[in-house]
Each structure stands twice: as structure tokens, then as C-alpha cells.
């Protein structure tokens, strides 16, 4: 009995020590835990499509280090318990090098420690800063920082002389993380939050709460949300004649939300990655080429417009591929270190500069203030 266990342990140790390097032709296993269906499917579904597309493209052009990438996608439906189960499966059983996703912050936080203990690189596609604060060496994230998005909004508000604001957020991970950052940073810009409310992610009408905010005489409104319900805000504001500037978060990065808002969406301001205005970027913009290529590939393959959400998964795979190339090996520690060493790396969401103390990689420059004009995204200050 003891002997067999010892043998098993030894076998495991040997497997551990020679990670995947055995056969040169063997694929590099990468896991992806995404909310393809369920309440966060508007994030997970484009992320999955993007990831599959990019992996296909990398493999078609010869793969990495002469090996193909094998992407194992798991649909977590936005549940932390399923994400936990899948993470253990991917780490212990498939022994993947890295995990892309999860799409939501709750799931990402649930598997953060598992990835750290299992020495598996996690490239989260969720925005909450708790994912990389405190820093776990193996855990990174690709979306921009909530705090930077808030700063862009507040800066614009200051320029417009807005002092008293109302805040509404959705009751998902994205919304509540944003609310925390807004409440933390607003005082730095001398802003007074007159009222902050949380609405259901499945809300069907928001005129009631907007009416409540209207009664507070605010000069500007921030809606921080990533769910489809956010398209209601602009509509409902116009319907009840609530006329103050509307600021959305970077969760607004999907032209569908503009279309759903119709005429009402015009004039909405929000910080976003330049992917939404890729074709308006000056020729010398560092991201222009990458963005146009992603958009072109995605739209050709899936017949739908690329969103900022799919871009998070795009960056995650791009970063992983670059780190593997730089490390020249699939040794976990070396790849991890290579990610930490990435500087000035051009991604779709911005220019990534990771370091030992920053696993978010992006700063204020990853954003640009956009606005909606005639149903299209345009740069606020071209």
C-alpha cells in the first residue's frame, strides 16, 4: 500500500519535472474557462469565438516553438463552483500551461489561488482589480483597470465643470467593482456622489431609478455596467426628460448597445479601448494595424462586429504566445516570468507593460474617451 503510494508520488513528481517537453510535436495545452452561456454569455461567447479563431490562426502559421496549441474550452455559465471544478480539472488532469478567462470577476477570484498553487498561468478576462491585488505571481489580467476608466470619466467631467454626480451600476461583478472604484476615486477629482444605486442585471426598465436620481439635481450621470440592460439608460433618460451628460464605462464597448439605444445613445461619453474606433485611428497609431486585423478576421469568420470583450481573450492568447516565444520553452516558471517581463507589448486593449508589481499591464493610455455620434463610436477629441 505505502509502496504503491510512494510509486504514484514518484511518477507524479517525474511528470511534474518534465512538463510536456517530452515529445517535441506534442501540442501545448491551454485551457479556457469562459461563460459561453448563462448570465454572462455576452462576455464569454465572443471571448470563446475570438480565442478559437486566434488559436486556429497561430496553428495555421506553424504554431509556437514548432508545436501546435491545443485549446480546451470549458463553459462555466458564470458559476464560480463550475469554474473551480474546471480549473482543477485543467490544472491537475490536463496539466495545461495556462488558463484563459474566466469571464467574470467572481469566477476569476474563485480560481485565483488554485492557479497560483497549481503553478498554472491565469490570464483573466475580467476587469476587477482584486484579481491582481494582492498580486499572485501566476495570475494576470488583460482588461483595462477600472480605476483608470473612472479617472478618464472624472477628468472629462472636470473639464465640463461637473461637480455633483449620480451613479448607477449593475449588480454583477463588473458593476460592483466599478462602484467601489468610483466611490474611492471621486473625491480625488472633487466630485460629490449625490446618489449611487445598483440595478438588476436583467432589468427591463430603469425609468424609476433614473427619476429618483433626477430628483437629486445631479449634473452628470455615470452608468457602470457591462450587461445589455445598460442600453436602457440612455433611452429611459430621454423618455423621462432627464437631460444631463451620460457617461458609460468601458463595459459599453459593444456597438449593439448603441444600436439598442438608437437616437438616445447619441452624446454618450465613455472610456474605451481604441478597437471600437480602429478605422478612425491615425495611420501611425501603434495599435491600428493589430486592431484592424482582428476586426477583419473576426468579422469575416463570424459575420458579426467585434467587441471590446472578445478583445480581452485576444490579448490573453497573444500575450501567452509572445511569452512562450520569448521564453523559448513551455517551462511554467519561465513563461510566467516572460509575461512579467513584457514591456511595450501591443495588444488590442492597449500597450501592455507587466512587471513584478503590476499584473494588470495597462495604464491610463489604454483608454481613450469616445462618444456616440449618429449611432457610431467616434473619438471625443479626434
Amino acid at each position, binding site marked *: 500500500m505505502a509502496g*504503491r*503510494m510512494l510509486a*504514484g508520488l514518484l*511518477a*507524479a513528481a517525474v511528470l511534474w519535472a518534465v512538463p510536456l517537453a517530452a515529445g517535441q510535436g506534442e501540442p501545448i495545452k491551454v485551457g479556457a474557462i469562459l461563460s*459561453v*452561456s448563462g448570465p454572462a454569455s455576452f462576455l464569454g461567447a465572443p471571448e470563446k469565438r475570438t480565442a478559437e479563431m486566434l488559436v486556429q490562426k497561430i496553428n495555421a502559421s506553424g504554431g509556437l516553438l514548432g508545436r501546435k496549441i491545443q485549446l480546451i474550452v*470549458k*463553459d462555466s*455559465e*458564470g*458559476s*464560480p*463552483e*463550475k469554474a*473551480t*471544478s*474546471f480549473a*482543477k*480539472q485543467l490544472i*491537475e*488532469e490536463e496539466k495545461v500551461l495556462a488558463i484563459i478567462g474566466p469571464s*467574470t*470577476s*467572481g*469566477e476569476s*477570484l*474563485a480560481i*485565483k*489561488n*488554485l492557479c*497560483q*498553487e*497549481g503553478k498554472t498561468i491565469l490570464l483573466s478576462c475580467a476587469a*476587477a482589480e*482584486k484579481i491582481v491585488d*494582492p*498580486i*499572485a505571481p501566476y495570475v494576470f489580467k488583460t482588461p483595462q483597470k477600472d480605476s483608470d476608466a473612472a479617472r478618464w470619466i472624472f477628468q472629462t467631467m472636470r473639464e465640463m465643470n461637473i461637480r455633483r454626480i449620480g451613479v448607477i451600476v449593475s*449588480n*454583477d*461583478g463588473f*458593476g*460592483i*467593482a466599478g462602484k467601489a472604484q468610483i466611490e474611492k476615486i471621486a473625491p480625488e477629482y472633487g466630485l460629490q456622489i449625490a446618489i449611487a444605486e*445598483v440595478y438588476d442585471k436583467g432589468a427591463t426598465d430603469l425609468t424609476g431609478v433614473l427619476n429618483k436620481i433626477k430628483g437629486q439635481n445631479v449634473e452628470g450621470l455615470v452608468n457602470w455596467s457591462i450587461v445589455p440592460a445598460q442600453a436602457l439608460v440612455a433611452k429611459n433618460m430621454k423618455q423621462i426628460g432627464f437631460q444631463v451628460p451620460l457617461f458609460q464605462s468601458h463595459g459599453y464597448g459593444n456597438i449593439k448597445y448603441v444600436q439598442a439605444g438608437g437616437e438616445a445613445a447619441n452624446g454618450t461619453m465613455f472610456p474605451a479601448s481604441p478597437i471600437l474606433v480602429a478605422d478612425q485611428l491615425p495611420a501611425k497609431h501603434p495599435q491600428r494595424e493589430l486592431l484592424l486585423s482582428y476586426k477583419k478576421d473576426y468579422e469575416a469568420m463570424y459575420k458579426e462586429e467585434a467587441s471590446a470583450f472578445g478583445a480581452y481573450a485576444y490579448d490573453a492568447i497573444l500575450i501567452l504566445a509572445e511569452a512562450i516565444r520569448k521564453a523559448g520553452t513551455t517551462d511554467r516558471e519561465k513563461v510566467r516570468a516572460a509575461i512579467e517581463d513584457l514591456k511595450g507589448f501591443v495588444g488590442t486593449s492597449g500597450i501592455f507593460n507587466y512587471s513584478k508589481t503590476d499584473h494588470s499591464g495597462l495604464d491610463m493610455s489604454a483608454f481613450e474617451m469616445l462618444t456616440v455620434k449618429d449611432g457610431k463610436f467616434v473619438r471625443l477629441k479626434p
Partner: protein
Amino acid sequence: MEGRRYIPIVLLLLAAVGVQLTLSACDAAYYLTQLTMSLYYAIVAVGLSLLMGYAGQVSLGHAGFFAIGGYTAAVLATRNLAVEPGAMARALGAMGLLLQREDLYGQTIVYLSPWVSLAAAILLTSAVACVIGVPVIRLKGHYLAMATLGFGLIVYYTVLGAPGLGEADGFSDVPGFRLAGPLEVNGRSAFRVQNFYIACVLAAGVMALGGNLVRSRMGRALRAVHEGEEAAQSLGIHVARAKFGVFLLSALIAAVAGFFLTHYNGGIGPSEATALKSVRYLAIVAVGGMANLWGTLIMGVGLNFLSLRGAFGSFDDAVFGVILIAVMVLAPEGVFRRLPWPFRRKGGDDAAAA
């Protein structure tokens, strides 16, 4: 004679040993992770089977009780009492009810002993089950279904809305639950084998208790209530009390399973409290044969195991929907019409279904 009823329990534990040894020998011990999780979910379904299959009372809110157990575990275990120790915390410390750990990032955390929070979870669940159960269990049919669904939704919206309950992110970083000596409910791979056994023993315990109950005087009374409330009353059975008793019991079973699984998973989120989760428990009870504890346990472990391994892909929920329809249309008595001898309940397996 009296010991014979425990033969299947012993067989269950022997089967567990067999499964573990086989998997470990095949270098596939990682299957134990999902088996352990599935066992906890199956325990909830077994508890629901007592309520639904035997007493005939539907509940669409059992995920709510699971979440009450799980969230109690999470809230109390992640509350760091080292930050600002109040008088209460000092008193608890003096009684030796506080534990200390260091998290991955080097922070020292002083937290309440999970034994205390288990007691708290049981008390809280009992209190909630009384407040909700006493009035609601008198309702019948659709009204009971709606009321229990409503209860589950209130729990869901509460954990989703309350800042102290983690809102949409829920809880992570829930530490393990040291039971005794080296035994610990903990999801790390080093604890994998022993946690499989912990879950098995808990499941065996619930099966033994449930098996005892359905053969007892109260068990017969519950089935009588199911098959004819008026006749049951005429025999002196306090129908409301019998229904409430089994409601409370199955709520407690769900809460304890939630408590353990939260420590095992290291966290919990609002997705554990959704109506869809409650419906899953219902589907498992239905496919297990309604009033069939062993069928429920087997289907509960099997289906959850497949689901947790992602075998159903993006059709995960749809599978449970199809099961519900198929069972009701094709085999309302469940898929196990006849179990082999030691698992067979007195009085026939297909008795008392729906």
C-alpha cells in the same frame, strides 16, 4: 436483524474504497475532485427526496437553503478578526474558538472556528426554515411551488444585493475546515483522497438517517400524508407538523451540504442560490425515482459528476430540462424500478412516487 438495514451503507463505503483505490491505481485520482463535489450536491437531492418523494411536498427553493449554509461558512471564515478585535472577538478567543492562518499573500487572518460557524449555520437555517416553512408548508400544489420558488429568489437577491455577502463576486479564500487531527475539508489536491472519504461518510450518514426515517413511524406518517392528507389526519397524524418536520430536516441537510462544499471549494457565489440550481435538485430527485433515496444518490452523483466535468458543454442546463420532461413522460417512477436486494426499501421501490 436490526443491523441488516445498514448493509447497504457498508456496501456504499466499500464501493467508495474500491473507487478510490482503482482511480489512484490508474493514476486518475483527479476524478475524485468532481466526485467529492457531486456527493455534496447529491446529499442535497437526497434530503429533497425525503420532502418531495416521501412527503409529497414540492420545493423549488432548496438552493436557497444550500446557500444559507454555504454563505454562513464563507462569511464567518473570511471575516478577519485580527484587524479590529472587538470585545466579542476577544471573548471568543479566550474560549479557544478562534483559529489563525496565513493566506497566500502572507497576511495573518484570525477567524472563527468552523465548528462554531457550523452551529451558526444550523441555527440560522432552522430559524429561516421556521419563519418560511411554518406558513408556507400549509400551501398546496402550485401555491407551494410558487412560495418555495419565491423563497429561493429572495435568498438569491439578498446575497446578490448585500455588500456584506460579497454581491456578485461571492466569496473566495474560504479556508479549509479542520475536522479532527489531519482530517480537513479542503479542496487542495493534497487533501483530495481524504476529502472524497469525508464526503462519502457524510453521504453515508445522510443515507443511514434517511433510510431509518422512511422505515419509521414518522416515515410511514409522511407517506400517508402524501397519499391522503384527510385520511392521515383521521388517524391522528398532525399533518402540518409532519410536513414541517421533514421540511426542516431537508433544509438542514441542504445547508450542511452547502457548508461543507463551501469549505471544499474555498468559496461560494450567488450562482449556488439560483432557481435553476433548485430545479436541478428537483430533476435529480425525479430521475432518481422520487421516493427512492438510493436512486437519488446514484443519479445525483452521476449527473453532477458529468456536469462538473463539463461533459454537457453549453447544453448543461438543457440536459436537466430534457431529463425532467423525459422522466415525467416516459418513467414517472424514475429510472430505477427495482434496485437489488440490500438497497430495496421495505414495501417496494416504486411505491409512493409522485
